[in-house]
Structures are given as C-alpha cells and as structure tokens.
C-alpha cells in the first residue's frame, strides 16, 4: 500500500465536506417544521440541532454506517485488491458531494442517502463487477425508501387523529391538552431511547439486556415527561389569545411537546444521515489501518463518528441558520399540534431504520409524515407537485450518482493505481 496518508486525508476531507453539506442543508428540513410552527426560535433550533444531531450521530449512527461501509459492496471479492475499495469509496464521496452541490443549486429535492447509495452501487457494479454488489441488500434499501415515507404517513395520520379525538374535539381542549400532551412526550422519549439502546451503544462499551433497555427507556421517557409537565404547568390559559383563533392556548401546550419532538427529529436525523458522509470514510480508514486487508471484522473507530457529527454541526452553524429561517418562513401553516405529529412520526420511522441499519432519507420520510396529517384534513394546503418531483429526483439521482462515481473511480484508479 502506497499513499496511505493521502487516502486517509482525502477520505476525511471528502467525508467532512459531505457532513458539512448535510448540516448546512438537510438539517433545515428536519428543524424547519419546529421553527415554522413557532414552537422554538432559530437560535434554539440551531442549539437543539447541534446537540442532538451530534448525539444521534455518535450514539445511534453505527448501524447505518456499517451498511454503507460494508453492506452494499461484497468486500470478499476485493481481498486481493483492497485499493479498489478505497478508490471506489473516495469516488462515491466525491460524486455524491458534487451531485448534491449541483442539485441544491437548482433546488432539486434530491436526497443525500439516495445519492451515496447510487454512487456506491455504481462504482461497485461497473468498476469491480456486477457480483460485487450485494443486490439483495440494495433491494431492501430501495424498498425501505418506499416504505419509510408511507410508514411515517400512517403514523402521523393516526397520531393526529388521536390528537383530534382526545384533545381538539373536546369541550375544553385546553384541559385535555394539558392532560394528554405529557403522554406524547413520554412516548417520544421512550421510543427514541429504546431504539438507541437496542442497537446503538455497543461501540461506547455499553451492552444491555432487553429488560435493562426497556427499563432505561421508560426511565428516560419519565424524566422527559416530568420536565415537560413542569413547563406545561407554567402555561396559563389566556382568554385574550383565543379571541381570533379558539385554539391559540391549546397550541401553546403543544409547543412544549414540539420542542421535545424537535430534539427527537434532530437525533434521528443524526443517527441516519451522518452515515452517508462517514460510511465511506470508515471503509477507507479500516482498509488503511489494517494495512491493506479488507477488515470485515474491524470495529468502527469512534473518531470517525465524531468527525461526521462535528462536520454536521459545523455546516449547521455556518450555513444552516439561514436555511432553517427560509424553511420556517414558508411553513407557518404548520401549527405545533400538526408539527409534532409529523416530527414524531418521522423521527420514529428514521430511528427504527437506523436501528435496522437501513439508510433512508429523513426528508422524504418527513414529507410522508406531512402528507399523513394532510390526509387527516389537518393542513390548509399542500403542494402535491413536490411529491412528483421527489419521485422524478429518485429516477435522476441514482444514475447521476452512479455515473459520476464511476468516472471518479477510474480517475483515481488511473492516478494512484498506475
């Protein structure tokens, strides 16, 4: 192996750049709903996102990273030529980064996840051989792209229906909001903690039995709920606020819930999307560190997860604030009682996928969740055109990512392999 240091540095730079891009752009979709509904300010959104994106990436990002790193390409075929894997992963990172730049310039709703998966499949299938791709795994990933928005939509539909039934349609919705919102808060904390505990914490040396996981998750839920109850108890009914719009006070209670789901959303996003940036980095690192062996067994070094988390936070701090503001301004129709349903549904779906190691698009999942609330007649107007352009972007993104990555693969091969 020559150029080891060069490969490492390149991988880190490309990975950091991707993570930075995710922080600058994708986070806005996850956090914008909270800001748009007025539940939190921009500043709070940035702080919440920074903390929970990082926590999600570090604590629960391992499984998806593993899939990106060694779930798509069959590394056994490469045991004699480990450098091919390095070229390919570098090419995939570069291709995805460039494609995302182009797409965001034109405002296309492409997903980071779809781009990186397309890029990895591309270099593996063409650069190495059709056999090098684990098509079964790729098939299940693609399936999850269809299932995840649908699942989020179904969850958000029923969440919102339950809010209608238990709170909004009562004679005194304010009283019922105060009674039931803590339950939703508990549920949010419980689900996120549970999935994280089940799948995530091995790399920081924490192994728990199912009973322990459940107990801790319940405990986390209760703690979050107690904090929530404290803030809810401080909300006083203000009759003036209800003059124009009878649910103004009720929405104030939901705003507390929405702060919690915003944290959950940021956590979920970090746990899934960070892998897009650092999965390929991890693959390169493991080959280089094991001295050219394809280390199927080697564990994911923690510093790589830190790199991804750090990159996301950097992008968020430098650029994300502006994008979140833009998003927030456009979705004022989304009140906290809907926003939480969307976020909780999306966060649950994404965290479940993270636990299973499926790389899915957080943004598309959120789109599904918003549609779910729309189906429950909860949103003034939704643009169905967006759904169509998302489908179109799938059709374009996969080959675009693949072709670019094939080009870069042969370029790297020519540069370093000669």
């Amino acid at each position, binding site marked *: 192996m020559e150029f080891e240091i060069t490969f490492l540095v390149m991988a880190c730079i490309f990975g950091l750049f991707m993570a930075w891009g995710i922080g600058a752009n994708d986070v806005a979709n996850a956090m914008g*709903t909270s800001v748009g509904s007025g539940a939190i300010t921009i500043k709070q959104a940035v702080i919440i996102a920074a903390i929970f994106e990082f926590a999600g990436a570090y604590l629960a990002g391992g499984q998806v990273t593993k899939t990106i790193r060694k779930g798509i390409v069959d590394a056994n075929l490469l045991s004699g030529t480990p450098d091919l894997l390095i070229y390919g992963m570098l090419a995939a990172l570069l291709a995805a980064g460039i494609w995302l730049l182009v797409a965001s310039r034109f405002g296309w709703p492409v997903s980071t996840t779809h781009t990186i998966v397309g890029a990895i499949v591309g270099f593996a299938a063409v650069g190495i051989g059709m056999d090098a791709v684990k098509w079964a795994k790729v098939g299940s990933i693609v399936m999850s792209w269809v299932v995840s928005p649908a699942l989020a939509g179904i969850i958000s539909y029923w969440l919102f229906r339950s809010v209608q039934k238990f709170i909004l349609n009562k004679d005194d919705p304010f009283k019922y909001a105060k009674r039931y919102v803590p339950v939703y808060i508990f549920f949010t904390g419980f689900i996120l903690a549970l999935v994280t505990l089940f799948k995530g914490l091995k790399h920081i040396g924490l192994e728990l039995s199912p009973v322990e996981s459940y107990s801790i998750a319940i405990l986390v839920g209760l703690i979050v709920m107690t904090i929530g109850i404290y803030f809810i108890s401080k909300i006083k009914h203000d009759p003036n606020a209800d003059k124009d719009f009878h649910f103004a006070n009720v929405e104030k209670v939901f705003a507390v819930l929405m702060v919690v789901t915003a944290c959950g959303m940021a956590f979920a996003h970090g746990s899934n999307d960070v892998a897009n940036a650092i999965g390929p980095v991890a693959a390169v690192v493991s080959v280089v560190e094991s001295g050219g062996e394809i280390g199927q067994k080697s564990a994911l070094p923690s510093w790589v997860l830190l790199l991804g988390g750090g990159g996301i936070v950097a992008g968020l701090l430098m650029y994300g604030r502006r994008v979140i503001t833009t998003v927030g301004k456009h979705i004022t129709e989304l009140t906290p009682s809907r926003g939480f349903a969307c976020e909780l549904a999306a966060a649950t779906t994404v965290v479940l996928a993270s636990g299973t190691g499926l790389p899915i698009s957080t943004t598309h999942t959120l789109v599904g969740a918003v549609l779910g609330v729309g189906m429950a007649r909860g949103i003034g107007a*939704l643009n169905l055109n967006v759904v169509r352009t998302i489908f179109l972007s799938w059709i374009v993104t996969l080959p675009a990512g693949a072709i670019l990555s094939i080009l870069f693969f042969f370029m790297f091969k020519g540069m370093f392999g000669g």
Partner: protein
Amino acid sequence: MARTTISSMFGSSPVKPLQQHMAGVQECIVELVPFFEAVLEQDWKTAKAQQKKIARLEGAADKLKRNLRMQLPRSLFMPVSRRDLLEVLTMQDKIANKAKDIAGLITGRKMEFPDAVNDQLIAFVKRAIDASMQAQTAINELDELVETGFGGREVKLVQSMIKELDLIESDNDKLEVKIRGALFKLENDLPPVQVMFLYRVIDWIGELADLSQRVGSRLELMLAR
C-alpha cells in the same frame, strides 16, 4: 437560497383569504343601510356617495377574489374540495355584486319608494345583511375547522350556525312576502314602470339573503366530506 423540499411542500392556505374576502363583502353590503336611508329621504347627494362607496368596496372584494383564485392550482391538496371552495367564493362574490347592482339601479333611476313601505324596506334590507353576517360568522370558523380536522364539537358548532342562517333567510322571505303584499295594494296608483322596478329591487334584496344561505350550504358540504 432555494426553498427546501419541506418548505416547498406547503402551499398557502386558502382559508384566510376566503375569510378576508367575506369580510370585504360584508363591509360592502352593510353600506346598503345608509344608502337606503338616504334614498328614502330622497337625499341623492348622500345616496350617490354611498353608491360609489359600495361600488368601490365591491371592486376591492373582487380583487381579493381574483387573488385567491390565482393561488389555487389543481395540484393543491386541501382539507376541503377545491370545487366547494371556489363555489363558496363565487357565492360570496355574488353578494357584493348584487349589493352593487341594487345601489346602481336605484341611483340610476332615482327611484322613489311609496311611504307606506319605507319601514318595511329598511327592516328587509337589514335582515338580508343579518344573513350575510351570519354567513360570515360561519366562514370565520373555517380555520378552527381545519385545526380540528373537521371533527366533533367544531362541526356541530358550525352546523348550528348554518341552521341559524337558514332561519334568518326564511325570516327574510317572510318580510319579502309582506312587502310585496303592501306594494300590491298600492301598485294601481303608481306608474307601472316604477312598480316594475320596485318589484325588481325587492327581488334582488331577497336574493342577497338567498346567496348568503348558499354560502352556508356550500360550507355544509365541506363538512360532510
């Protein structure tokens, strides 16, 4: 900065603009009361000023209507059917149009009303305005309806408002019958052309309440979906 996927997903809700349009319509039609008072006193200067005001307010409501229509592309996914929504808008718009027509016709012909029907006429106009006000009250509940996802208590509330609107309209019908009866007794002593137009004005005032009622029944269709 291009809008992101999530932000481009949200269209602008038609609810507020629809309510604003109805408010504009209401603002226009309440001016009929001072207008009729001036006409009955044969104060044509004031009447003309009022008629101009009504026409101007109708124009303003028209602008709101056009703006709302422009922002309702077919690709929009809304909690109410697009057709019902546009239908409500059209009905609301017709109320203002009718008010403008009434004021225009009366001013143009400098119409005189027999003293015997004066009081009844004012009461009749006021009742028609009550109807449109009730329609506006119901339309103002639309944002609460969306908030509750068109369920339970809020739906019952709006249904009771629409029932009230129906009562006002049928009350208005009774007033119309009475005023026609009064006019019928006098019509032989009045110039026939004048009588013809008197009946027409009475017709149109009755239509004001009819249109308000139709705003209500369209709203009811929205609830039912």
